[in-house]
């Protein structure tokens, strides 16, 4: 029995269909969101949790309609605030698997405060952020991930602001699991989602998502066939960070300058041994932070995959340890005894 008296049901064998609510998604044709929900619905049968114990909580925006399309418990909440609802739910019901579905504006602008605190607490929440670098539901305004100079309805002369790098922000806030994928990389995204589901602690996934109506082609600089191999770096745990045609290029750590650089195998005596091995389990997040920031640097590829995956006790685990200890220490007190636990006096 859980705290609220529900039985822990054995997990049946599910198919993808068991996670479809039957409501037709109302996203624009060609929206990257379809690919994301497809991967989530495909991943859910294999997370080892009963359907009724999985909850999807969203904020406001195109992405946040997501829970209506999942056949789970779900809550479509307020703009930016989904992490706060999810946090209360997870702390009070730690046995539930809780997902937060959010977008770049929802998570990083109006909800920025909740986002960083969710990450630093290491609550066992999975935060899936759809990043289309635009406000879609309000029809095309600049977002906190829009690039400098971006022309939108509210920045007709170009955005004067620098964008957030979402994985870097999550890492800086103390997230124990940080990953990135791309909407059109279905299989890759599925793998990242499964890894986040298996992670215990705050997990953040950024998915680069195309908005065909208000920011079409936002990621063609990565995904166009012509540039793809040079532009994307696929991080795999335990393997050297290689990319480019025939995996000839790699990332090397220059110890003297303390920075990452792109090198080519076979040039200037560079061999595979010089290439940085990807290790998301490093307890120090510095290298992960450097990797996350590569996407903002000219001449560097954009890494996708898992930047960091580290196990630390979660806030919900810590909370319930304290509750358990308090109950063990104080025992089961009657209400009267509890209320009288003070300086008292008798009136006859």
């Amino acid at each position, binding site marked *: 029995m859980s705290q609220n008296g529900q039985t822990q049901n054995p997990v049946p064998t599910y198919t993808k269909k068991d996670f479809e609510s039957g409501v037709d998604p109302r996203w624009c044709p060609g929206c990257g969101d379809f690919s994301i929900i497809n991967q989530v619905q495909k991943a859910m049968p294999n997370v080892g949790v009963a359907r009724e114990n999985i909850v999807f909580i969203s904020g406001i925006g195109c992405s946040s309609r997501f829970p209506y399309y999942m056949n789970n*418990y779900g809550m479509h909440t307020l703009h930016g605030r989904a992490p706060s609802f999810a946090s209360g739910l997870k702390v009070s019901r730690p046995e*539930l698997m809780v997902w937060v579905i959010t977008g770049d504006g929802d998570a990083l602008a109006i909800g920025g405060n909740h986002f960083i605190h969710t990450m630093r607490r290491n609550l066992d929440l999975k935060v899936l952020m759809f990043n289309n670098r635009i406000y879609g539901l309000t029809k095309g305004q600049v977002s906190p991930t829009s690039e400098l100079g971006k022309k939108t309805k509210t920045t007709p002369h170009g955005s004067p602001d620098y964008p957030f790098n979402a994985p870097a922000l999550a890492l800086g806030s103390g997230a124990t699991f940080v990953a990135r994928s791309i909407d059109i990389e279905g299989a890759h995204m599925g793998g990242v989602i499964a890894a986040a589901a298996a992670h215990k602690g705050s997990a953040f996934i950024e998915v680069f998502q195309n908005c065909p109506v208000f920011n079409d082609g936002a990621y063609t600089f990565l995904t166009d066939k012509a540039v793809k191999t040079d532009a994307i770096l696929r991080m795999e745990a335990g393997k050297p960070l290689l990319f480019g045609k025939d995996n000839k290029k790699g990332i090397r750590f220059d110890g003297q300058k303390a920075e990452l650089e792109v090198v080519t195998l076979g040039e200037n005596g560079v061999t595979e041994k010089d290439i940085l091995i990807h290790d998301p389990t490093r307890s120090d997040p510095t290298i992960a932070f450097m990797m996350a920031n590569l996407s903002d640097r000219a001449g560097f590829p954009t890494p996708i995959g898992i930047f960091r995956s580290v196990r630390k006790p979660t806030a919900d685990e810590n909370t319930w340890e304290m509750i358990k200890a308090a109950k063990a220490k104080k025992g089961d007190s009657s209400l009267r005894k509890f*209320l009288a636990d003070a300086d008292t006096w008798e009136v006859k």
Partner: protein
Amino acid sequence: MQPNTGKTRPVEKVEGVTIRFVGDSGDGMQLVGSEFTKASAIAGNDLATFPDFPAEIRAPTGSLAGVSGYQVNFGSRDIFTPGDQPDVLVAMNPAALKTNLQDLRPGGILITNSGAYTEGNLEKAGYKSNPLDDDALKKNYKVVSVDMDKLTQAALAGSGLSNKDVARCRNYFALGMMYWLYSRPPEPQLENIRAKFKKKPEIAEANVKVFQAGHAFGETTELFVSQYTVPAAKLAPGTYRNVTGNGAAALAIAATAKLTGRQVFLGSYPITPATEILQDSSYFKDMGVVTYQAEDEIAGIGSAIGASFGGSLGVTTTSGPGLALKSEMLGLAVIAELPLVVINVQRGGPSTGMPTKTEQSDLYIALFGRHGEAPLPVIAARSPADCFYAVMEGFKIATKWMTPVIVLTDGYLGFGSEPFRIPEEGELKPYLVKYQTTVNDPAGYMPYKRDDKLIRPWAIPGTPGLEHRIGGLEKDSMSGMVSYDGMNHEKMVKTRAQKIRNVIEDVPDVEVDGEPTGDLLLLSWGGTYGSVRGAAARLRAQGKKVGHVHLRWLNPLPKNLGAVLKSFKKVLVPEVNDGQLANYLRMSFPGLDPMQFNRINGKAIKISELTAKVNEILG
């Protein structure tokens, strides 16, 4: 020091006394006040207390801004308030004298630490000359001027304590004198001191010595012409403890967890004057309370709503500015129809206003402060101990009716204290908070299919087959799925409003204190209860035909209220705001135009000022 004359002073029996202890905010006046209160409670007096401190934790020493006080009113009769006017003022420095002397009853006792009247302190307090040398002062008050600094140092000569530690003991000198003056046995206090400073035995012994020196000083000095005793009050039999309003609210949170067997989840953010509820509750983990200090006010209520979605009894605590921040979330709880309790400890506003001062100015925001049509039940506590019952009632209403409920208290109740009779075993009844576990319609689980009271079912995550989605968008009146249909929206708005009107079945009729008809009805709500009840009693004793009705329920308003208001020739609404209840009554009872008595000075209404107002009206 005066020689011991061996004379005993006459012991005067008095019905009630109001004492105010004032000093620098670092002087320990809150401690002295609460210790003296404890002694009065144990002596069987009815009592009420109120601390008064600046928003700054430590304003400059000796400054007017840094004065902190604690007032206790105790007596052998019913005590309604912490007292209008102190009979005794204990002022530890010139700044404390300057800011409080005007409140002392003419002829009252002024006890002050003459050692603190240094040139520097006099200047900081804005005195050109030493007020203790002023003949008018001695003419108007019984002045007991004692160099507590010197006597404390003398008592601790050779103790080896630093000058700073010695100075910090002087509040116990004042306490010792007060113990003697009001004939309290000193022994329990010695035990208290030793228990309080268990980890620092040398400080404990120093305080004991200084306390005893103060007590002995009272006994030997001729500065006091008499000693007083206040007989025990006639309180209902039982076991009592002292509670502040905030302390009582926290006890109610734990009691609710116990009575329902459900987890109570408190998501909150620190804010004066509500913080103590979160602090106290965080000690109640063993009782089934889970506390969560969120990153801001919004996340505080958000986490509580999230926990309520999960089947916990969500509660959040706040004060005015925080309530403003929570208003969008409250709208969500209204439209989603999830149980939630919001405890709002009102303070002076708008904006940051006067955080440590009381006000009743959040009635409008509680009733109307949400966008869209978003009615919800509003309950107000009337006294520190009543915060316990008001919060308990809030939970019961929220869970029965699947609605957020606002419980209003205020800084005066939250910080104030009074004796609380601890309910006997079994006196507080357990109640059932039930979840939907079965499909309720042939078409599947319908989260907004209502019962005959218009209450929707509550199915929580973990219940197989009842998976459903809810949210802030308008929803279909059965399935809860998003609906933009205009007629459905109108139906839902009216249904939600009717559900809140249906809560009237749980709202008791108001009762008139005094005769059912008369010349003037005093109508109060919330924290002014004590002052108004006290004023009504005093006015009737003077032969005035005055009744008193106190409102606990602000929404819905009690059924019989309209009829009761018509049974009096005049209605006067005393409030610590600019007339919010009065206006609400004008709106709710067209044609009724109550008179107003408003104080917005950060303090509770005084019995004397209200009786004066009524006498002026009735002539």
